[in-house]
């Protein structure tokens, strides 16, 4: 049973446009959510996070939105740049150390 789901294995976006990556979860105990970015042959790197007491967190071109009632979060990248091409992982935790990860979405930014 997947507690964190990223239903789009891949997403292709034109450079300069907005990229929207989605993540759904089933465990209502999750209270902290993170997005990681992974380039080929590298480990994932932390991108942005959000606590369940917020519904939005913004960091430069990256914004994460959390909809607790829908158990849904999304990562918005505006404007998309070629260097954003990577696999993006959504992860969630319930106030402990164990992160539950989604399967990832491969983002391709087209020039």
């Amino acid at each position, binding site marked *: 049973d997947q507690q*964190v789901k*990223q239903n789009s*294995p891949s997403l292709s976006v034109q450079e300069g446009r907005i990229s929207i990556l989605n993540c759904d979860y089933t465990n209502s105990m999750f209270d*902290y959510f*993170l997005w*990681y970015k992974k380039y080929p*042959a*590298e*480990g*994932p*790197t*932390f991108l942005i*996070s959000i606590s369940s007491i917020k519904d939005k967190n913004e960091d430069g071109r990256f914004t994460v939105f959390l909809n607790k009632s829908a158990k849904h979060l999304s990562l918005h990248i505006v404007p998309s740049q070629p260097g954003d091409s990577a696999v993006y*992982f959504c*992860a969630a*935790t319930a*106030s*402990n*150390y*164990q*992160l*539950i*990860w*989604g*399967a*990832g979405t491969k983002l391709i930014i087209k020039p």
Partner: protein
Amino acid sequence: GAGVSQSPSNKVTEKGKDVELRCDPISGHTALYWYRQSLGQGLEFLIYFQGNSAPDKSGLPSDRFSAERTGGSVSTLTIQRTQQEDSAVYLCASSLQGDGGELFFGEGSRLTVL
């Protein structure tokens, strides 16, 4: 080095052999995690070390898998009698505290079992 270091970066082995994967976490990080990523899958939690506490081994898929962390620093993940389904990228991560916050990952060890 400043980051999490893993070795070897690539390992090809024959079915039935034992393998050891090493992780050097960031100095001062008390929490250390092992994950694995199989093709097309998300990151699968394997084991977690926090300071001197007993490790959480709940993610280890079978008793062929074991891990230790010596002196609260370097960790070794051992897979005995490897099987083809063990083929994956094994990722190590460390964090300053084990509170589910930001993890710093190594580049991973790609294991291929023939």
